[in-house]
Every structure is written in structure tokens, then in C-alpha cells.
């Protein structure tokens, strides 16, 4: 995060909008409430995904093991909101399933916290 941050307007914002071409211009898809750490995994094999449009096939390939929405976005190099739209399409088709992180209002789960603590200690 250095000089790139100064390039706030990038190349006249063209590349910023173009990713939405892969979503058919759709910019929002909140139906599943996907967030950055929602985990997704594909129910489809890589072979089965071969017939899908390339971005979808790429996601299916990545999601052979559970990944967060943010990781999918980072790996296919598309902005988060675009990836959420694509993932929503795949979820709708039941090609991908997802699991949201625990709701905010919930008190932090003792077992989860203890596991995180132990996990960090073991690093």
C-alpha cells in the first residue's frame, strides 16, 4: 500500500467498471447476504464446470476446498462486489454452497475463541 493508493482515480475509472461486464451489468446481489468471510465450496467438479462461462468455471475450480469470498476475489482478481454477484449465480444454481460467519449479535462463542487462542499459540 504505497503509491498505488495515490492513484485514487486509476485510469479514468474505466477498469473499475469494466469488471461488471462479466456480471451482465448487475452490480448488486444481496440475496444471500454474502460477506467477505462467508465460506463457499463448490459441489461441482472441475470437469463439470468446463461448460460454464470462464469466470464461473474459475470460481468452481478454486472452490474445490472451502474458501472465503474475499479469497475467491483475490485469486480471480475481480472486485468483491463482482465476485458476490457471480457467486450468487452459482449458489442459485446449487453449484456452490455457502456458510456465513456467525451473526454479529451473538456473543462470541467460547469454544471458537478458545480454539483461536490455542491455534495462534501453536503457530
Amino acid at each position, binding site marked *: 500500500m504505497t503509491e498505488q*493508493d495515490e492513484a485514487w482515480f486509476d485510469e479514468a475509472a474505466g477498469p*473499475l467498471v469494466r469488471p461488471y461486464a462479466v456480471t451482465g451489468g448487475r452490480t448488486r446481489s444481496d440475496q444471500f447476504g454474502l*460477506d467477505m468471510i462467508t465460506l463457499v465450496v463448490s*459441489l461441482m467438479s472441475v470437469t463439470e464446470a468446463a461448460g460454464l462461462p470462464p469466470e464461473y468455471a474459475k470460481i468452481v475450480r478454486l472452490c474445490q476446498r472451502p474458501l*472465503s469470498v474475499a479469497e475467491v*476475489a*483475490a485469486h480471480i482478481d475481480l*472486485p468483491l462486489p463482482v465476485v458476490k454477484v457471480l457467486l450468487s449465480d452459482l449458489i442459485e444454481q446449487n453449484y456452490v454452497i455457502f456458510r456465513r460467519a456467525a451473526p454479529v449479535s451473538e456473543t*462470541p462463542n467460547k469454544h471458537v475463541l478458545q480454539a483461536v487462542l490455542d491455534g495462534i499459540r501453536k503457530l
Partner: protein
Amino acid sequence: MVSGNSDPRRRLTATAVKLLIAGGFGVGKTTMVGSVSEVPPLRTEEMLTSASEGVDDLNGVEAKTTTTVALDFGRITINPDLILYLFGTPGQDRFWFMWDELATGALGAVVLADTRRLESCFPAVDFFERRGLPFVVGVNCFDGAYRYGTEEVRAALDVSASVPMLLCDARDRESTKQVLITLVQHVMRNANLLPTGR
């Protein structure tokens, strides 16, 4: 429908949790993420459409309504069913729009402070205090020169005595681990899950 194997619980039992690493621009957030992440820090882009009016002066250029902010994050697989993500928060004020989404569902946060420009972490401290998200302050000592003690930093930041504060080196894995351990213990204490903190 691809196959009969569509029971989500059979294929996706893992839970994801996240911690935030906040602080001013250039304070070492991504370095800290990288020091413990099992993968080199990943970068993703969030986009904002139209909510940034008034922030930028484009001087005659027709206002763009879409802007992006890069987020760096790392991953620690705690066990097959639990994945911890560490997200660096955007360092600049103009990216405040991201903070709510980042903070949603976060267990807690590290505010990384640079004693050469302490004021750059004020917004993070304010944000977490207002939001009631447990946080610890890590005073990043870049060159090993401990210019100030933690109590001086505490006074300067005006954070309560209950907020853990420790010196650290964001480049150092053991040091980062210590900061994260302190944070998780603080979160547990806050939730009354640790007997000692009552």
C-alpha cells in the same frame, strides 16, 4: 442440481472468524498480517458506488461514482473446521465506508500505533470504542528504539486502562502472535469467558 450430494453440512462444516488489524497509513498492518499468515497476504478490492460525494474534488472533471479500495488479508487455518482471517483496515480516512463491513462479525481488533505519528491511529481507536469492539493497542517499534513506554502511549491515546497495550514488532512472527494472543484473551475477558477478568 449437479448431483445428489447437495447436503451443505456434508461438504461445508467450517466456520470463518476474523480479526482486524487497524492503524494509520503505512504503520505496518500488512506486514503484521504477513508475519503470521499461512499464505502471503492476499489483496482484494471493494468498490464503492456513489457514497463518496463530497470527499473528492475533481476540479471540473465529472464526478466518478465508483471507487475502489484495496484490502490486504491473511489466513490461518486453525483446524479443518475453523479458519481465522486477519484483515488490514484501509489506512486512509476516505475509506471509512469499508470499516462497517470489516467490523461486522469481527471478534476484535489490533490497533497498530506508530509513536512517530500517534495521531494516525486516533480514528481507529474512536471507531472501535464507539462500536464496542474489543481492541488492543500494539505499539510498533520499527527500529527497536522504544521511544515511549506503553503508559505514555496510553495517556496520549486516552484509552482506558482496561485496554491492553503492548510493544511489538510487526515483522516478527512471535511478536505478532503475542499481540493476537493478548487480543483474543481480551475478547474472552470482555465476554466474561475468562474467570480472571471479572
